[in-house]
């Protein structure tokens, strides 16, 4: 074996390379603070590896992206873990990157001759945020889609060329297939290539200048990186990796419903590391939005990049650099508090598993239209539950109403009466893609069916429905059951000026009674 290594070394010189890699002389006093760079390298390696393996199963098209990610999370061996590692790895990377940056600032390590190393580090920070942004869209669920719409709209705010930037980011007229392929290409080809270049540059510069070491030169001789500092690095990497593994073990957050560009009720929220920026925007009126979204962050970034030229004193000790320290503390506090405020300021959305009343009503339509006659195990079409339908609402609507769109060989289109029934069915089918039907009491299902058929076209329930009539989300706060019964049966008998049509002849008295009870319960 030794002879083989000797032979190889004579030709490749790996022992010399190993020495260059491991025997870097470090100034005395280099300690635990200097382990963060290596932790970042380890996390980057994990991201690149898990990301590369995720591409084995991921399909970057709107028709398949969601299903392929769901397949990874639910079907592939260790898929949940790999996706979890990649998902939380991004957050770990950003946290460690911020700590590394703070360490560099605290130790004044950006001072000459390390300005270019510092600038390459800032570029790497932006690049990592670019990865986070582009990767967020890929699962193609509601969260991914709408966060991306917001990000692109922030790009549009830029004073010069904002529209151009937004259209380049979008790829097409709207966020869609072209955006997905574009961001996927950025995420897996262009940004990684840039990342490798910048990391190599950053490391070469670090080696060229040597690491800055403690703020005050300590007495003693320099010592080699291996094994003392390498052991420190390894210990921290072990700690971080175990923590990452613990997060990943629980899997990445569950997917939301498939992306639905027509769903105007969805309230988008970005991933936590963009929450600060998201929150900042809330404090600016529409006219000054560009200041909050673009100008302020840009100024902050430029100031950060210019630190080596702003902070030019002799001493690197924090107590000799009070202004920089104060600015950094204020900056860090601002970022942390904005993020915390953004975290707390969540919209009071319902439980993700809650079923909208329209979807529950849609089930009644599905049953009435005999969809399950063909959509059954072993029949001509897959069961609705098994299809994980991620088609657009238009497609499903077309499928149920247009015989030509039904699978070949089937000549019995469902007999749907109205657009409202189709909308209810679409809502049910799309809700099924999020999870199985939980089941509700028969009376509740019956009432939901009536609402989906007669009420929701004009009235909103939990943000879903028409706007011609009043929002009935909290209907029970205003009237009692008897009032609702009389009103639904014949509104004009209650108020001669009422515009709502009478339902006394269209809906059975027992159903009107159930509907009144349902509305009263909505408080």
């Amino acid at each position, binding site marked *: 074996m030794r002879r083989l290594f000797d032979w190889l070394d004579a030709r490749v010189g790996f022992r010399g390379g190993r020495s260059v890699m491991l025997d870097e002389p470090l100034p005395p006093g280099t300690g635990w603070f200097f382990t963060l760079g290596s932790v970042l390298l380890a996390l980057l390696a994990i991201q690149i590896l898990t990301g590369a393996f995720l591409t084995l199963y991921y399909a970057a098209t709107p028709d398949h992206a969601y299903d392929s990610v769901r397949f990874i999370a639910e079907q592939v061996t*260790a898929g949940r873990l*790999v996706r979890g590692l990649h998902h939380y790895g991004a957050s770990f990377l950003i946290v460690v990157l911020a700590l590394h940056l703070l360490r560099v600032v605290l130790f004044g390590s950006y001072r000459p001759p390390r300005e270019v190393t510092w600038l390459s580090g800032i570029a790497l920070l932006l690049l990592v945020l670019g990865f986070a942004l582009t990767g967020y869209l890929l699962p193609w669920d509601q969260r991914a889609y709408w966060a991306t719409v917001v990000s692109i709209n922030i790009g549009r705010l830029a004073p010069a060329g904002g529209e151009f930037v937004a259209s380049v980011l979008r790829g097409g007229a709207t966020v869609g297939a072209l955006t997905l392929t574009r961001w996927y290409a950025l995420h897996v080809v262009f940004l990684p290539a840039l990342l490798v270049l910048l990391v190599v540059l950053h490391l070469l510069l670090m080696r060229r200048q040597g690491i800055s070491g403690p703020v005050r030169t300590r007495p003693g001789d320099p010592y080699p990186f291996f094994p003392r500092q390498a052991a420190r690095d390894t210990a921290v990497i072990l700690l971080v990796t175990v923590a990452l593994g613990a997060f990943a073990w629980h899997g990445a957050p569950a997917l939301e419903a498939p992306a639905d560009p027509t769903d105007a009720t969805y309230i988008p929220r970005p991933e936590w590391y963009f929450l600060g920026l998201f929150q900042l925007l809330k404090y600016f009126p529409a006219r000054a939005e560009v200041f909050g979204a673009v100008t302020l962050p840009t100024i902050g970034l430029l100031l950060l990049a210019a630190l080596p030229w702003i902070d030019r004193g002799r001493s690197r000790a924090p107590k000799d650099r009070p202004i920089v320290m104060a600015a950094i503390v204020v900056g860090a506090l601002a970022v942390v508090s904005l993020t915390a405020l953004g975290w707390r300021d969540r919209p009071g959305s319902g439980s993700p598993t809650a079923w909208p009343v329209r979807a529950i009503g849609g089930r009644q339509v599905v049953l009435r239209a005999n969809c399950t006659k063909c959509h059954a195990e072993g029949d001509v079409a897959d069961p609705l539950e098994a299809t*994980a339908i991620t088609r657009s609402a238009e497609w499903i609507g077309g499928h149920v109403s247009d015989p030509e769109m039904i699978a070949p060989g089937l000549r019995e289109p469902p007999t749907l009466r109205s657009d409202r029934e189709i909308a209810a069915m679409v809502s049910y089918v799309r809700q099924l893609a999020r999870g199985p039907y939980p089941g509700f009491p028969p009376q509740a299902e019956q009432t939901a069916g009536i609402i989906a058929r007669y009420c929701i076209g004009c009235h909103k329930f939990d943000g879903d429905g028409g706007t011609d009539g009043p929002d009935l989300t909290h209907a029970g706060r205003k009237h009692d059951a008897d009032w609702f019964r009389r009103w639904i049966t014949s509104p004009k008998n209650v108020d001669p000026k009422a515009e709502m049509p009478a339902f006394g002849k269209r809906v059975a008295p027992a159903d009107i009674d159930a509907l009144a009870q349902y509305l009263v319960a909505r408080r």
Partner: protein
Amino acid sequence: MSQPVDPAPGRRQILAAFVTAVTAGIGASLAAILGAFALKPSRAAASECWVHAGTLDDLTANVPVPHVVSVPRVDGWYRERARQMVFLVWDGNQQVTALSATCSHLGCQVAWNGETKQFKCPCHGGVYDVSGRVVSGPPPRPLESVAAQVRGGNVLVKL
């Protein structure tokens, strides 16, 4: 900068062993996870199931009638319906047998010849009798028989 100074040899060995062990441990864990991820995708393929192939009314006694059957197939996250041809042979009573239309030679689709009362493969001339046995030509095996049953006038086949 002067020559780097090493820690004591004993300590150096311990630290080096620690670095090597942790690096190998993390590497091996990742390799195991990613290896399993890459090499063992779930076989979520649809297992055989009974699918509707036609009704007794469509069949003529003792004459193989071709029917295209839509069979659910799962390919990863992708669900599709494969169209597969089978010949249904009704005994005139309540019994139906089904034969795959795929030639056992190289997979072409055979056709029923009513005059010769034989199946013939258009590709290489394989000939089978009404029960699927090879009469002549290159096919190495009979036509594959497919489980079939009659339920309430409907013919179901297992594919």
